[in-house]
């Protein structure tokens, strides 16, 4: 089947006479509609997963990249001195927006999940923590580490890189997985439409023989099938996408405590992404049917 502008125009515009030459078939029509709809529904969730993972990766990357912690591990009588010295160093470090030592209450709150609320901090050798907020440009981690080593021997700088990297990497992989699933779904649509088109072409061998006898070109015959399957895939995927978006929209939000699952969904312009599904499914169906038809028409005599 040749794909030129004329063919494409004929496909879009349709031909009320040509549309009737292929008999309406209930089974393949319903199969194509149902599978396109189901696949589009699943694709909406894959896209939602992918976009949510992307947001998570960005948020973790951004938030954690701009924070760091210094632990002051020093004898009790040196703790306050070294904490002040570290804060002094930080105040003259380019790229540090804010630095402050955590209060006893804040440190107690951090440990509360493990040791309870009544932990007597003053009886335990708990290191003092300093929270650092970096500017957008960030600071020189290696340089700061060297300065601290020289001026505050009990200071240990933790830039969160050790545990930030695998989290961001996991979220990015999840995003990739989401898009892979979406692509696989589109591939499955292509395979299903090819099979359904093949079945329809085989079932209509007599129709094709009659059309050929009266002078129909292969393009004409193929177009009759291509247009039908494309419209079915378009309609099915539009329904599936609408239902999928509605289902995502109805998912409970996390309110003030958003977690990963409650954050699964679309935000802002992301809600427009599922709109791509019907034209993509329609395009895939068009190509798949054209491929199936050109193969079948070469073999059918």
């Amino acid at each position, binding site marked *: 089947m040749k794909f030129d502008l004329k063919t494409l125009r004929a496909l879009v515009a349709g031909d009320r006479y040509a549309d009737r030459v292929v008999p309406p078939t209930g089974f393949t029509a319903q199969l194509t509609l149902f599978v396109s709809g189901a696949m589009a529904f699943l694709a909406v969730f894959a896209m939602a997963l992918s976009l949510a993972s992307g947001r998570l990766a960005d948020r973790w990357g951004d938030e954690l990249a701009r924070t760091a912690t210094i632990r002051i591990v020093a004898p009790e009588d040196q703790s306050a001195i070294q904490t002040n010295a570290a804060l002094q160093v930080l105040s003259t470090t380019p790229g540090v927006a804010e630095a402050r030592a955590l209060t006893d209450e804040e440190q107690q709150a951090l440990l509360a999940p493990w040791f309870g609320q009544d932990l007597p901090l003053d009886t335990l050798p708990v290191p003092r923590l300093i929270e650092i907020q970096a500017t957008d440009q960030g600071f020189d981690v290696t340089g700061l580490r060297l300065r601290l080593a020289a001026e505050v021997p009990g200071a240990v700088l933790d830039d969160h890189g050790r545990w930030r990297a695998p989290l961001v990497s996991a979220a990015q992989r999840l995003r990739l997985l989401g898009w892979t699933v979406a692509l696989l779904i589109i591939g499955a649509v292509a395979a299903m439409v090819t099979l359904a088109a093949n079945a329809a072409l085989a079932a209509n061998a007599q129709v094709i*023989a009659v059309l050929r*006898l009266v*002078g129909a070109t292969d393009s004409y015959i193929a177009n009759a099938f291509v247009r039908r399957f494309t419209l079915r895939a378009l309609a099915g995927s539009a329904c599936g996408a609408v239902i999928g978006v509605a289902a995502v929209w109805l998912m409970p939000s996390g309110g003030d405590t958003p977690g990963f699952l409650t954050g699964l969904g679309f935000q802002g312009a992301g809600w427009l992404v599922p709109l791509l599904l019907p034209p993509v499914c329609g395009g895939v169906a068009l190509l798949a049917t054209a491929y199936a038809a050109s193969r079948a028409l070469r073999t059918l005599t």
Partner: protein
Amino acid sequence: MIELENVAYSYGGGELLSDISVKLAPGSFHFLTGPSGAGKTTLLKLCYGALLPTAGHVRLFDRDVRSLERDDIAKVRRRVGVVHQDVQFLDHLSVSDNVALPLTVSGRQAETANGDLTELLAWVGLTNRSEAMPPELSGGERQRAALARAVIMSPDVVLADEPTGNVDWDMSQRLLTLLVELNKMGKTVLIATHDLSLIRAAKAQVQARVLRISNRRVQLAGADL
């Protein structure tokens, strides 16, 4: 118009037709006869590009069929009306839609007046069956509908393969009369049949050449028919 030159056709390892040379001149009337299985249908299919020869040349309207693309062959078929013994229709379309099918596939349905179609259905005697569905037609009605479909594009050539095979004598005479009328309108007609009485009846109405397939070859039949 349609010319076969030293054509051979093999199928399944055996040669079905050998060294066939036939020329269908414009306005001529031919019968093709021979026993069942002699290759009449195969020869007819070679005449409209449904089969390609394994040797020799088939020229359709001065173009060698081997040099034609698939779509070109389809377009050539619009100039050749074909009627088969086992007529096939699109069963989901009415008789009038089936008769108009060649116009539909060539994109000419919209520009063709309904009057032409009505006139054609009247010519084959199917005016009151125009909205019937094909499975509702009798054998003779199916053959006449097929003839109407074959000639709606006003083809240069009409090929009929055993057109009277499934109908009674009266109906076969009626079909023959229609084919003779077409020939008198200037169409080239080739009828494949093993029904010698049909040939004799036709010879009374029109000057016809009779070709006989025997031992894989075609020869002009003598006056014994």
